[in-house]
């Protein structure tokens, strides 16, 4: 049915009233991200009236205890602070449902609760299931949802599922999970979340490329020399995260999802339209076109893995990776990875895409830089200073979201000397109002049925195919690819620098 009063009010898909069921409701993600996101959406008037939230978890808790815990943390972490009046308006709509994830009876009770809510709404209703539990429960939760009939929406309504990362640990586990998900929910109702895509600058990538006439004509191998994507963190394994990380590593934890998603946005062809599938069709083509490093030799030539050793970060001494809490002292898990990726398409033929991601690097930053080729040097190469570097378009994803363009300029004076200068655009400077948190945007999109910023099944599986080749070379090949080392607080191992030097390039200084 069409709501005539919606016309021209907001330029986005319309969210509808629904019940959000969060599995793993006592966890950090629910308390720190999901409920504060729903709170801020309510505060901004973005959340449709009548949205109910049901927290599903194993611990015994009353509604009141659950709400009190959420409120306490919302006061601390909500980006807009905490308004009692707003909280009081949404708190009565938050409920707690205690059950084991494997207990069929618990899902039957959940179904009864949802039916009661729907009856109150006039008979039927929309349901959004958010699986924020530990990954080992994904299968059970999906299977039980299906057994309880909760995966089926009533006519004219919808039942959707959001699945948190990690979406599998390799291709076969991802395929298995996809099978379970698709046996339970239709692909169009499945939302594989990647919070990087909810970030303002990531969303701005398409606008930058396709709403500005000056970039797209240059966006190809004729004018671009290389592209770099850096995701550096100045943290190690604090807070017990070593247990999870040591089983995962930088490649699977960051590259398979976040960084390949960013890469696909940078490298994709213009979509035919702005529909979710229109955009995702183009993104998956990029991932499919990435040259596979399918032998140990090729992996050794194009991928560097490393672990940090004892050093100091931000003035603090830190232990080496293998000395970290909950990390195997003989671990072969990488805390750093650098890759050269070649995209075998007409547009990108011969242009290397370099990705590096690591822990205990000097600072926290996620940036994409597009390095343009130097102009013919016939005019200025004879100068004593030469031509200093080429144009670099840098897109800062976090922190200090923004875009800068490096150009070459003449230094004022009577002689002809050239120096690089930078034009800089910062979101915080231009737009005083802070951007919504990624989870706010993504939750609202899922409620509104807009899957553009979520990964599709084929994207996930194609990404795993690429990653699996490297993982196999690292862990199963007879001639294992060596593990390099870097001192904590430096920008990574020498081998990563060499990877670029082979092409006559070097990592951009951040």
């Amino acid at each position, binding site marked *: 049915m069409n709501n005539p*009063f919606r016309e021209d009010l907001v*330029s986005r898909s319309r969210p509808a*009233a629904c019940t959000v069921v969060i599995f793993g409701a006592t966890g950090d993600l629910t308390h720190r991200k999901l409920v504060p996101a729903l709170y801020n959406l309510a505060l901004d008037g973005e959340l449709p009236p009548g949205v109910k939230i049901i927290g599903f978890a194993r611990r015994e808790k009353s509604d009141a205890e659950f709400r009190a815990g959420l409120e306490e943390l919302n006061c601390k972490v909500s980006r807009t602070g905490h308004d009692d009046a707003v909280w009081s*308006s949404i708190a009565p709509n938050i409920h707690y449902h205690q059950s084991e994830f494997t207990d069929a009876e618990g899902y039957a009770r959940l179904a009864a609760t949802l039916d009661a809510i729907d009856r109150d*709404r006039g008979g039927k209703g929309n349901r959004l299931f958010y699986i924020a539990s530990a990954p080992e429960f994904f299968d059970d939760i999906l299977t039980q949802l299906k057994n309880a009939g909760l995966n089926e929406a009533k006519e004219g309504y919808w039942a959707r599922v959001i699945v948190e990362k990690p979406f599998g640990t390799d291709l076969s586990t991802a395929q298995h999970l996809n099978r379970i998900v698709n046996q339970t929910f239709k692909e169009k109702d499945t939302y594989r979340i990647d919070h990087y895509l909810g970030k303002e600058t990531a969303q701005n990538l398409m606008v930058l490329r396709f709403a500005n006439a000056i970039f797209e004509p240059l966006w190809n191998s004729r004018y671009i020399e290389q592209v770099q994507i850096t995701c550096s963190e100045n943290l190690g394994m604090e807070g017990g995260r070593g247990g999870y990380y040591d089983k995962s590593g930088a490649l699977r934890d960051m590259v398979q999802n976040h960084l390949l998603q960013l890469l696909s946005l940078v490298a994709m062809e213009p979509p035919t339209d702005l529909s979710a599938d229109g955009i995702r069709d183009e993104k998956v083509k990029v991932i499919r076109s990435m040259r596979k490093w399918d032998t140990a030799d090729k992996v050794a030539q194009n991928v560097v893995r490393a672990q940090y050793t004892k050093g100091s970060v931000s003035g603090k001494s830190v232990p080496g990776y293998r000395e970290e809490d909950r990390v195997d002292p003989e671990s072969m898990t990488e805390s750093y990875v650098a890759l050269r990726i070649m995209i075998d398409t007409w547009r990108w033929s011969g242009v290397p895409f370099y990705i590096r991601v690591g822990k205990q690097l000097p600072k926290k930053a996620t940036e994409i830089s597009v390095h343009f080729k130097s102009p013919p040097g016939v005019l200025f190469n004879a100068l004593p200073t030469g031509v200093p570097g080429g144009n670099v378009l840098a897109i800062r994803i976090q922190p200090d979201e923004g875009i800068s363009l490096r150009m070459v300029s003449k230094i004022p004076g009577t002689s002809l000397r050239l120096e690089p200068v930078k034009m800089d655009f910062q979101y915080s400077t231009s737009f005083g109002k802070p951007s919504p948190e990624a989870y706010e945007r993504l939750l609202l999109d899922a409620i509104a049925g807009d899957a553009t910023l979520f990964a599709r099944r084929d994207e996930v599986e194609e990404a795993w195919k690429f990653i699996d080749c490297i993982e196999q070379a690292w862990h199963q090949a007879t001639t294992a690819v060596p593990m390099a080392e870097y001192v904590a607080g430096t920008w990574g191992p020498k081998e990563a620098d060499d990877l670029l030097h082979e092409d006559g390039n070097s990592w951009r200084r951040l």
Partner: protein
Amino acid sequence: MKMETAGAVSKTHNDMSSDTTTILDNSNSSELDPILGQEVAIGSIDAELRKLWAVDKARTNACLINFAFYSEQKGSLTLNSRIVSELTRDHACRALLIEMDRSASQPSLRAWVTAHCHLSQGKKSVCCEQIAFALTGVSRGRLRNTVFAHLSSDLPLILWWQGELSPIFEERLYSVIDRFVFDSSSWSNPQASFTIIDQAVHGSKRPLVIQDLAWTRTYQYRLALASLFDDPLAQQNLSHISQIEITHHPLHRNSALQLLSWLATQAVWRQGLELQLAVSHNQAQKESYHFEHKTGESIKATLISDEQAAPIAQLSITGGPMSLVVNREPSSAHIYMRLIVGDHITETLAPAGCDDCAMLIGDQLARGGKNSLFLKILPLFQNLLESQLR
């Protein structure tokens, strides 16, 4: 977006909040206004602006739009400078403040320059330039030729016209504007002014977006109502609506009428024949309008004026088994929404938005858009305004 590193704080003036400063150049303190800054010769405005940035490299000059304020009210420069100081927290702009005294016999023009600075995320000082102009006497073309010669090039020009429209608002002026902002609540003869606006929109050589702050004031109500009508049960009863009541503050009748016009336009109601009769029975505090559904069923709309109320205090709609209320207590930051359809009840809060013109402008700048919906409801709104005259 234009940015440059800037400086020159020869003296700072602490503004309303601690992280806000106004840059002043006191090289000639006899001509220094504590709010408007340094008085400068018209021919040296650009040079004086550059001086502001000459020393302190720690400041960043940010500008996304040219934002002109026009007023014929004495003292408006000072008031508007304070508004710019707040507005530039969220909207980087070059501000051009214009105060016009058309009654003066001799034409004159004075100008002051300053910049408003804010700490961005507690670290970087981001500044926006301001040029204030005081004009007297009638001399056609001065706004375009002198004042608007100081725009930051390539950036859009937004003009906020404060108060009644005057003969200054003519083709040579509005043909350089991208967005024209006004508050029809303050107009003594909105019918006549809207006719002029209409001519400007259709006569302008370039697309002119118009923005009535009276319309912006209805935004949260429209959003709230749209949310309630997302509910299928409410939508099912759209064709059964029989009564509408809008309570408003007497100063905000235009907002109430625009809200009603929007409802009728979007729901495709026709103005009923009883309109004139109802209007002839117009009471001091209430006015009634009649509409018809496509089916011919009648809808009675009542506007209730209340001195104690918020600008738009309450909107209630009834029809069939449905009753719906969107309500706001005076000075409350939230609006309360309730939908009842039979046993089904939905209650929720939503942000009320703001009433203050400066904040409304800020909200509007954040939303942007071509405001085509306003143009769509304008004919009916003008009709309803006219009907009160008959």
